[in-house]
């Protein structure tokens, strides 16, 4: 074993030990980038598949359920009331919320047909990874799409998606908050109505 390899091996051992000691940072920038590359490749294949719009919505819903941290996003969208909700309510809300998101944003994916998303950059911000992509759609100037990725749910998933700085998480927090206010804070009424909203 020559000097260089030994040094590399040592560095590798230290790095491994570091990761093991700090599980919160085990998702690397490269790992997050690879994950979003995979997501983006699948999105591109859906928007260029030539399938019917309703088939595309179903594909997007499946992608979202596979790669997004839906339970965390939905609990955050519910805001402080999530703390007093029962686990059954949380589960029902999460299911209704996932369907609502697919319907609401599915309609807008029509604009993406024939376009392409490319991952450009990735970096660590505090305990999570930020992956920056660019969407190039027909007849429009390119716009920025950013994925926030974390492994703190137990698997590598994205927990927010930003388009030109507009956060899905933040806007759904505001929206679900407003819906809950309109229903006098009644979570069951919110769940019921969410099943047909979007």
């Amino acid at each position, binding site marked *: 074993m020559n000097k260089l390899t030994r040094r590399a091996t040592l560095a590798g051992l230290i790095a491994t030990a570091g990761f093991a000691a700090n599980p919160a940072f085990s998702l690397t920038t490269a790992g997050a980038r690879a994950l979003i590359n995979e997501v983006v490749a699948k999105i591109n294949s859906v928007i260029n598949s030539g399938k019917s719009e309703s088939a595309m919505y179903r594909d997007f819903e499946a992608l979202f359920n596979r790669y997004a941290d839906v339970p965390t996003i939905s609990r955050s969208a519910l805001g402080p009331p999530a703390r007093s909700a029962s686990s059954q309510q949380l589960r029902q809300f999460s299911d209704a919320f996932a369907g609502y998101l697919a319907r609401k944003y599915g309609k807008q994916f029509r604009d993406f047909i024939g376009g392409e998303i490319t991952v450009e950059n990735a970096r660590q*911000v505090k305990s999570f990874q930020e992956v920056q992509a660019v969407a190039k759609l027909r007849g429009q*100037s390119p716009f920025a799409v950013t994925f926030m990725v974390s492994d703190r*749910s137990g698997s590598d998933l994205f927990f*927010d998606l930003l388009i030109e*700085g*507009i956060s899905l998480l933040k806007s759904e*927090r505001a929206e679900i908050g407003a819906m809950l206010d309109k229903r006098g804070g009644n979570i069951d009424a919110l769940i019921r109505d969410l099943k047909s909203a979007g």
Partner: protein
Amino acid sequence: MLPALVSAKRILVLGLGLAVLTACSVPEPGTDVHDPYESVNRATHWVNVELDRSALRPASQVYGTLVPTPVRRSVDNAADNLGMPSAVLNKLLQGDIEDAVHNTARFAVNTTFGLLGFFDPATDMGLEARDTGFADTLATWGASEGAYVVLPLLGPSTERDTAGFVVDILTDPVGSVLGPRLGDQAEDNSLNFTAVSTVNNRYELTETVDGILYGSADSYAQLRLFYLDSRRFALGQTSDDDAVDLYDDLYEGLFDE
């Protein structure tokens, strides 16, 4: 600029007062909105939504249906091209020589080969528009955002952006009245447009705008969030700044209890 600074100071004082008053409660994460005129703003918002429902939306549907896409795009291009000299001036004021030269080249190409700007060969040559306006210049000079305001007909803005817009009318009268509002780098996603481009963009973004204005439980709050976040993003603020608290809270509260 001055009113914006004065009100920023007022907000600061108000904020300090509130911070003292609410020292015990935890501020809701992700709420970084200064909206002291909310009740007036909401009233203006509803007038704007009513105008959209009765005039802008129907007009945009007629325009979009009658006028073919290439013509609509050309009108958009021409208004955009007329705004380039103002964008060049503002890039210079911001000290961004590279973008000023870039926009000058774009203006030259589109005014000549693009037949007075009705066509856009510059973008294919790598000379895409790097729009900006006096609001961006004010931001570069360090003016704070000021309060969120909703302008009659024009929609969401801030005190700083409104001051910038007034100056834009002087430096780019046609673009300010006919074209997409400069100073709005996220122009394709923004909801601030005037006259012809307003109608055109209202048509092209029918689903999205309808979803916000008529599908939301609180369209005022959604529009405010969209405007402020896309503006801050266009001005180069990143997730290092305001959203991080929200993200921290996300997993702290859920898994570390």
